């Protein structure tokens, strides 16, 4: 019996390590994802970029999670950064924005580019909204690049803009994103 156990134990461990190996292969990470948002009005155009967006992609579960620091958005002007963080987004209270969603109809077998809808919950300024995002997913030699753009309404996230500045900031903000994933290794 003990002899048999001795044979079984290594096999058992082999299975565990194999299972572990498999889950890691399904996960991809992007530490330096890029998100840019634009506000176009006749008075001024505002653009801000964040190059340190974190995202984890699970190709088996078809799930994607994104998290970013609001203070890591870089603006052209100091005052824009100040207003954004202190008045509109209130970064002290809500330092992060996040998204969690599912890629509908995502196929791991597809090589090259596939266009899919990502449906999930977007949280900005402590307010969560369900949105659909049309995205392009590219498989490059086993790694993935996901990019796309969508619009959000400032009102939906209870971001208050004083009447005096309302002509400077668009009601609808367009957001562009680009994530280049690598296999996730601890």
């Amino acid at each position, binding site marked *: 019996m003990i002899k048999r156990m001795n044979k079984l134990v290594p096999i058992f461990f082999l299975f565990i390590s194999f299972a572990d190996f498999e889950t890691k292969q399904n996960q991809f990470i992007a530490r330096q994802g890029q998100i840019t948002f634009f506000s176009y009005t006749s008075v001024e155009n505002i653009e801000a970029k964040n190059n340190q967006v974190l995202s984890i992609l699970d190709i088996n579960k078809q799930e994607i999670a994104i998290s970013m620091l609001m203070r890591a958005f870089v603006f052209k*002007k100091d005052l824009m950064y100040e207003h954004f963080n202190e008045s509109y987004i209130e970064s002290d209270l809500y330092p992060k924005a996040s998204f969690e969603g599912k890629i509908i109809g995502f196929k791991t077998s597809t090589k090259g580019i596939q266009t899919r809808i990502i449906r999930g919950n977007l949280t900005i300024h402590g307010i969560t909204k369900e949105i659909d995002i049309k995205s392009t997913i590219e498989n490059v030699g086993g790694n993935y690049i996901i990019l796309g753009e969508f619009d959000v309404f400032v009102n939906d996230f209870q971001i208050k803009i004083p009447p005096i500045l309302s002509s400077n900031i668009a009601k609808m903000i367009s957001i562009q994103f680009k994530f280049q994933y690598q296999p996730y290794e601890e």
Partner: protein
Amino acid sequence: MTKKKIFLFIFISFLFIFGVYCYFKISKETVINIKSASISYNLYTDDLIADFRDNEKSANEKFAGKIVKIKGKVKEVSFLNNTNTVILLGDESSGIICDFNQKQTKEIKALTKNQTVIIKGIYKGFLKDVVLLNCLLMNDKTNE
């Protein structure tokens, strides 16, 4: 020339100067002089990450917007999306992402893996890694 007219003239010129001042203040582009900025915290990579492991919220409050000087080992250098980034080695799952201004490209390209560096930057927060922006490489030649 009455007193009233003089007063009006002074008032209008004051208004004009104030307007010009406001215009320049508003349209001023972001120039952060990290080189001369004073350092709030002087740390090692392990200390900074340990602070976050203990209590993310209090660490965030402590470091938010502060200028930190950090000593650590280079894990990776990346030029993705036209950024200059040095990732410092942390523990098994976290590191420190340091984003540089374009000026030090040459020095950053010369960095090798596991080289010890001192970096000064503005602390922005913690996701999976600590994020520092507007970074500056303090010693580009020292090898330990």
